[in-house]
């Protein structure tokens, strides 16, 4: 058997942090870096996002664990939005964040003027080819988050030609349009999709009436989800990401739950580490990771454009969500540990004293148990934890604050 030589290059795993608790989940479960937004300038207006105090706390938490923090400023800002931007940039600079993600040239100019923060070109700019990359390099960006239409092979060519870092999405929801080139929400609902108001019109069901010049009767298809993209999943392509030396692998999902942030980070962390240290083991373990990813609520998966141009199979045609016969449900977060006594858990979904639940640990298999003795926050014995309550469950030695609990549901 050939000796396995550890690989020197390892891409950054970049996970979403839609809130402080999601930042804690992502970094605790293996993200090398997280991306987040302040309360303005990002593209997820409906997300919780970070106040300045939370941002400071998040940066401190992440940096203490060796994780980087990138802040998104990737809205296409209007003139009136620009007024408050310099102060925010200076604040980010004082916090020592590790980079900003921007696509608007006005924002990029402002960042360069008011700080020396590294600038990552957002996927919103749809940078897809070597020449585009060279132009943006001249404009001062330090990393290119390529458009989702770019393949791994494109990314390698761009990196080789420009010498600057490249980042690709590896997992999560995808726009169907060239990013930044969809204004359906703007014109139909008065919500600026490029300032955080996307109404997800591409996920709606449509009837399609085909124009047929040869035949006066138009052909119609009802209830189609013709513009809804499947979710991206690139775990099988990790060897190609290594070969192409893609600097950063990004997971989409700032709006998703802490369980999502934790699990996706953990799975991809393991996959990257295994391939880096023992490439021959990667294929053996791939099936397990796939099974785990299948149990996280998602649309059908597709490799998108990572290996080949997205085909018909990349469209989530049939329904908004695949039929889920089994899935993981988010039970709650460990908020506090009283050693040898109890874990204080914030219940995000109900669970009862008898049903099996799982503590997702940072490494290895989850710990399965039944919280036979559930108590209210004040220590009164109860049969069932209600959603939104704080409860005590029996102490588990391996538990840590911020860890997530899940339930395996079969329907």
């Amino acid at each position, binding site marked *: 058997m050939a000796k396995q030589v550890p690989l020197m290059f390892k891409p950054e795993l970049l996970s979403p942090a839609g809130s402080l608790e999601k930042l804690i989940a992502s970094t605790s479960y293996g993200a090398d870096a997280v991306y987040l937004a302040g309360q303005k300038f990002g593209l997820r207006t409906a997300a919780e996002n970070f106040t300045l*105090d939370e941002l400071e706390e998040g940066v401190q938490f992440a940096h203490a664990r060796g994780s980087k923090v990138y802040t998104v400023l990737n809205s296409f*800002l*209007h003139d009136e939005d620009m007024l408050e931007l310099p102060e925010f940039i200076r604040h980010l600079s004082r916090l020592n964040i590790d980079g900003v993600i921007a696509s608007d040239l006005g924002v990029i100019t402002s960042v360069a003027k008011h700080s020396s923060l590294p600038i990552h070109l957002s996927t919103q700019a749809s940078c*897809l*080819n070597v020449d585009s990359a060279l132009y943006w390099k001249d404009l001062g960006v330090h990393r290119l988050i390529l458009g989702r*239409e*770019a393949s791994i092979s494109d990314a390698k060519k761009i990196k080789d030609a420009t010498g600057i870092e490249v980042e690709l999405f590896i997992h999560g929801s995808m726009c169907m349009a060239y990013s930044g080139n969809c204004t*359906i929400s703007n014109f139909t609902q008065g919500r600026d999709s490029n300032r955080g108001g996307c109404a997800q019109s591409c996920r709606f069901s449509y009837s399609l009436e085909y124009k047929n010049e040869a035949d006066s009767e138009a052909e119609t298809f009802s209830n189609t989800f*013709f513009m809804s993209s499947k979710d991206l999943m690139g775990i099988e392509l990790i060897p190609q990401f290594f070969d192409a030396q893609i600097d950063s692998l990004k997971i989409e999902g700032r709006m998703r739950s802490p369980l999502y942030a934790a699990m996706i980070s953990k799975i991809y962390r393991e996959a990257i580490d295994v391939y880096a240290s023992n490439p021959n083991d990667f294929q053996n373990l791939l099936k397990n990771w796939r099974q785990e990813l299948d149990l996280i609520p998602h649309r059908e998966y597709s490799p998108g454009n990572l290996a080949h141009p997205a085909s018909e199979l990349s469209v989530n045609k049939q329904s908004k969500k695949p039929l889920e016969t089994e899935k993981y449900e988010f039970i709650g977060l460990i908020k506090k540990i009283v050693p040898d006594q109890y874990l204080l858990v914030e219940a995000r979904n109900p669970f009862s004293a008898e049903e099996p639940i799982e503590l997702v640990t940072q490494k290895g298999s989850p710990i399965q148990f039944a919280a036979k003795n559930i108590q209210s926050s004040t220590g009164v014995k109860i049969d069932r934890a209600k959603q*939104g309550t704080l409860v005590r469950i029996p102490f588990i030695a391996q538990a840590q604050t911020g860890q997530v609990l899940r339930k395996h549901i079969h329907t």
Partner: protein
Amino acid sequence: MKITSQANSLHELQLLKGHGITDVLLGLRELSRFGNLDLRLLNEMAIQTRNLGMRPILEWDVLMTNDRMIHAKKTLALIDLGLFSAIRVQDSGALHVSKKMFPDLPIQLILETGNHNLEGVKRWCDSVGNQLERVILSNELAGTTLAHYIKNLSVPVEVLGLGPILIFYTPRYLLSFQKKDLNWLSQETSVNTHRVEALAHAEEGFHKGFRLLENQHGTFMFHAKDYCLIDRLDQLFEMNLDTIRIDLKMNGDQSALPAVTKLIDKANRLQFESLLADRFIASYPNKVTRCFFQKNATDVIFKKLTNEHIVRNDDHFVGEVVEVAKDRYLLIHVQSNRLNLKREQSYSFSTPEGKVKEVLISKISDLDRNEIMEAVKNDFVIIPYQKSITPKTIITLTLN
């Protein structure tokens, strides 16, 4: 105001003659989103455009992955660029190629996607330098903003004056994917002439009548109505707009052209008549909209996407109510780095429903019911029950 429009055949080019049109957009099917000219016809039409006293503009407005860019560059090498007065690009890669490879060819830069701040538009202009002939700005700009930009830019500005509003562009072939008998993707010979059209209606809500066009570059979706500033020509003239674009490609014919160019001519001679403009709009084959020309308020709704009652203000924020045990207690999570929760101190409780209640904290206990004087960050503590307070209520220090 100069007028620009496009021509997809020699016949269409002849129709543009004599209507005051200065620039004619010519689209080679490999480089242009909607142009369908082959190389021979492109060259011929460029010559004809000049002969007719107009300026031929090479339209290179597709977005390109790296392979498509390589192919585009090969195609460009076959074009006699000396025939063209300018090149029109959106993809920053196309801009880069135009600057490096054709430094003598003026550039018309499409900034219609985003670019809603003057600082950014100026930076684009500066990055192109003297080669930049014109910028094409977004149809989402309000009229006042457009006027401000025109005044403050050193480069002439063009906007769409009449034509379809592109609201979605993907390289995927969504109409063929849906209708199997359109599966042309494996048929190499049909690629360049492929064209499918459809209307899309959302099954629920008010998204009706979107026009869809699929060609070799992917799928394009247009608003149900055309964009129209024809009844605002006097304002456009007053703000010194350099060029107005008339785009009739989705109409199937150029029949609206004589009337609209006549109206523009009148505006240029300070003889604009709104009554005539209204008549034109009434007779125009499509419904029209001015969209955001009056005002762009596409961020107003954002406040409704988050619950403003429970948005944190770091300066006075203390924590939030996690749990309510009716008639017994409130469970509070202290989250602030700056402020502790203290006994005998007044706090404002702001519920998600919008109620605000001032509460003097008379007693604080830890989870084991031990009384404490104050609670610090990350503590979970209990205070006496308060009516009408619900979970997620935000607690802030009352300001005297």
